[in-house]
């Protein structure tokens, strides 16, 4: 483990990746690997696919580091956003497979999962603090705002599709989702989490 003083900034690490230094990639992984894996796991629901997603995210950064632009947000949120996009795509691709899982298969999967749970919860001050802040921000939303936001996040569904499924008009769904994101920004801004998102701060 590196000393706190020796820790390189995200920008330095990203520059290292651009310069083809794989130790920089390793350090970025150490910093954000658990976050990326957790985002993927929450969306795809199984560890094997979550690993696939995390691997794709970090190797995509390695192979095309110029796709990350510092002005557009922090490396951490960018990686988490990339993990989310890839995970949603995996869910779509795998759906046909999951629909064929029969009851026996389902029970086998549950048994297998339970034996997985010995995996420790990651200890990272940055992540735990951020997680708390986001949880607090979500708690400030109205139930309908939270519903619109999380259905979109976990479902990978268009606003139109959510409108059809919930039988709530499209305009209302969009308004709720936008209001939820705006509220999230305000609360996170107040709790200084938007250090992670410098663009948002400079705009307000």
């Amino acid at each position, binding site marked *: 483990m590196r000393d706190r003083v020796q820790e390189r900034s995200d920008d330095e690490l990203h520059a290292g990746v651009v310069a083809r230094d794989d130790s920089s990639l390793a350090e970025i992984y150490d910093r954000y690997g658990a976050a990326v894996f957790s985002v993927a796991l929450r969306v795809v629901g199984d560890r094997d696919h979550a690993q696939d997603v995390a691997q794709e995210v970090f190797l995509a950064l390695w192979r095309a580091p110029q796709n990350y632009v510092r002005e557009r947000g922090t490396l*951490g949120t960018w*990686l988490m956003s990339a993990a989310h996009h890839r995970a949603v795509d995996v869910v779509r691709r795998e*759906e046909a497979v999951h629909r064929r899982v029969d009851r026996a298969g389902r029970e086998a999967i549950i048994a297998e999962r339970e034996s997985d749970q010995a995996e420790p919860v990651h200890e990272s001050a940055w992540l735990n603090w951020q997680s708390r802040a986001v949880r607090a921000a979500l708690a400030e939303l109205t139930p309908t705002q939270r519903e619109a*936001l999380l259905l979109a996040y976990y479902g990978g569904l268009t606003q139109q*599709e959510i409108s059809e499924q919930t039988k709530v008009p499209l305009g209302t769904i969009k308004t709720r989702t936008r209001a939820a994101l705006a509220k*999230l920004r305000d609360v996170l801004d107040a709790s200084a989490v938007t250090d*992670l998102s410098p663009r948002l701060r400079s*705009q307000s």
Partner: protein
Amino acid sequence: MTNDVTMMEHQRIQDEALDLVFAAVEPADLSAYDAHLAECDQCREYVDELSSLVGLIGAVGDVQAPPPSLRAAILAEAVGLSVSRPGAQPSGAPASRNLLADEDVDSPASASPFAAPGSGERRRAHRSRLASVATRFMAVAAVLALIGLVGWGAAMRSQRDDARQAASQSSQFQDAISRPGQLTVAEIDAVDGSGTSRVATAYMRDSGMMVVADDLEANDTSSSIYVLWSLASPTDRAPVALGSFDVAKGDLMSFVAATGAAPSGRWFAISEEPGRRVPATPTKMVGAGEAA
């Protein structure tokens, strides 16, 4: 220069930006957005702002440590040593193949932060997406309700014939119900003496209880109600009523209105009660089963 066509284009992009940042745009349709976003600072900033907020949503919840082998696999792959990670899914489109697309940085789609990992799925039929929307929605709504992140409204408003099955078989549902110590699952089998057949599955959490009806007849909601009971043993003569619920025709799952009583054991039963009241003891037992 801003002409009317681009004004409309800005509006369209910003109007559809929510779909873009929530990964709801089909990979095949991304190039239309990317072309505009590559040229337009205003729209790109708007999309980036939303996108980084969406990235932060992922921070909610427990952070799970990935297996140690993942780090080694990523670094080996990065320096050109292709190794097969234990447990990697052969059907899940291997990362090495997918990532060829990311090397092709000249292509607008792959340069986009919204690009899909591979090119194969771009041919995905639109039809299959339509078919999967209802099932994915239902699964997600049910899981979010089950883990207490949202209310039951969305799950209850959407009732589709295939959604019960889809919800219980989705990977997200699997994940939610496999969290240790938080959820009790009991499969309830018929007790009519005709042998064993599943009538329902009960999912019980602190945040709520749900019954997925496998073979439970719709009740007449004007004159009867189902009650979920907890029993210390199969022969317990003093079961505890945990809550009541209705099964509507074509319903997939029923939210149980809790009585507030705590379970008295690992056995659970369902009875049908006349008069829509929760009695002290079950009137007509429908099924029973032990928690898994």
